[in-house]
């Protein structure tokens, strides 16, 4: 029997393109990018900021706030909505195994995170190139980082920023598995993220929470854009390890719960 993940993923994309929520997410982050552009345009000029720095600032702000919420909402509705409306029964009564269904949902969440990240990058970069310039990073003493080096670090920051976002998607889907109503799942996901975020410093668990790393890669890249010394290591290993541990644990826990559950009404 063939694997059903691709047909399931095609179904997910077909459904997502016919609902308003994903488009709303794209619209919100685009508006946020424009607002950031207006604010930075009125306070900063080409002397203090280049297009790299602007794009970096924009990406960081988008994904530590509104982008995070949009992604959390989307991912925490993925399974809860199917459970609440009973459509999960119809899907699982066809030749679809539970792990295939769950994996397709995870891939859908990751795909949406990537789409949000790409859209945000395109909008930010387009707006950035309007007021500022992409190019070598230099000061009055001369060249600090060549355009090529900056670009390589930019790509690195962009792709590394997906890793903690993947943890966020896994967290949303995990909550979506244990909470059977979509509205409640969204509330629990966002509520717990903010609760942990506000208390993580107080209880000293800051370095063990994946949300801490959502803006990390852009923070490092910002140092590149400003022409100061930058160091990916060793913090980047912490970010990768911590995020992957969250991904693995949340995926395994969510799949185990989903596979063992009775789906009856």
């Amino acid at each position, binding site marked *: *029997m*063939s694997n*059903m993940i691709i*047909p*399931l993923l*095609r*179904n997910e994309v*077909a*459904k997502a393109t*016919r*609902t308003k929520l994903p488009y709303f997410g794209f619209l919100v982050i685009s508006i946020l990018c424009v607002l950031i552009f207006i604010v930075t345009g009125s306070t900063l000029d080409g002397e203090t900021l280049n297009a790299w720095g602007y794009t970096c600032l924009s990406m960081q702000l988008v994904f530590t706030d509104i982008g995070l919420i949009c992604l959390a909402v989307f991912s925490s509705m993925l399974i809860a909505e199917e459970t609440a*409306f*009973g*459509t999960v*029964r*119809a*899907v*699982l*009564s*066809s*030749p*679809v*195994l539970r792990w295939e269904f769950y994996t397709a949902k995870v891939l859908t969440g990751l795909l949406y995170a990537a789409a949000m990240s790409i859209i945000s990058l395109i909008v930010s970069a387009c707006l950035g190139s309007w007021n500022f310039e992409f190019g070598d990073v230099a000061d009055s003493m001369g060249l600090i980082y060549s355009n090529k080096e900056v670009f390589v670090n930019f790509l690195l920051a962009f792709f590394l920023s997906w890793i903690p976002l993947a943890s966020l998607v896994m967290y949303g889907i995990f909550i979506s598995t244990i909470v059977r109503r979509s509205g409640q799942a969204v509330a629990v996901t966002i509520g717990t993220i903010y609760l942990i975020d506000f208390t993580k410093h107080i209880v000293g668990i800051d370095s063990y929470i994946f949300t801490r790393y959502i803006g990390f890669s852009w923070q490092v890249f910002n140092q590149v854009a400003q022409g100061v010394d930058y160091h990916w290591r060793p913090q980047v290993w912490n970010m990768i390890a911590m995020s992957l541990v969250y991904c693995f644990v949340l995926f395994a826990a969510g799949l185990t719960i989903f596979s*063992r559950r*009775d*789906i*009856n*009404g």
Partner: protein
Amino acid sequence: MSTSNAALRLDDLCKSYGRIRAVDHLSLEVRAGEMAGFLGPNGAGKSTTLYMTSRLVHPTGGEIEIFGRNVWSDFKSAIRYVGTMVETPSFYEYLSARKNLELMGRLRGNVTERDIRDNLERIGLSERQDDKVSTYSHGMKQRLGLGMALLGRPRLLVLDEPTNGMDPEGTREILSFLQEKVRDDGLTVFISSHLLYEVEEYCDRVFVINHGHLISSGKVKEILAPHENVVLVSFGGKPPDTEALIKEEGIEHIEILPGEVFEITLANRDAAWLNGLLLKWGYKVSSLISKRKTLKEFFLSITGGKE
């Protein structure tokens, strides 16, 4: 117990929710090419059993086989023969009927555009195929649910109260359609219901379940036979003298129901005997039928009065 032509075989199936036994050592076999009824009052364990056949609910014990394939160890092979509609069918309400069928068809694997078109025609939704399902009536949703179950040409249909909430005409339409599919295409249908007449009129065999275990099974005509001793009589002319009639040996009780229908309870006699007696007395009988059992009466008759 297993026979080679079993479409669905449940063997010693159990399901417990804590201390509650929803399904209790249930064994039954639905033969290929028959329309079998699964009868029981609300809460008898029908839906739980049907959920287990699609692996939506994990059994506590026992085995389920579909055309000889174990549902738990060989799920994909087993389920591709099955079309299921358990309880109220659910859809992506923001999508059209056609899109819903396309999505489900993609998961079934062997469904073409033409199959979807034919299916929509068969269930009478061609004209509304592009409307969002959220605008459909309950009956239309039931029909779409049936259409979804029929996707991919299944050999076995497992339906949980498919006519629930439908008007009598729609009910008759659906059940006649299923009966036709059984007769012409060799489809096997396992249909649960709490309505006695549905099973009585359309099914070949019936399995009766109560408190999670099978209490009776066999041919519909044998199991669901109407009351042998209660007869409903209407008269064309002058109604009979009940005072005189009750004195006749063999007549136990007479009750006049609304519409001048006489409910006559017989003692060790049958409807043919009563017909002869009334003719002998010169009464013009316009109709004489044995009274059908209600579900409650039926259950009381086979459980010996124990609920």
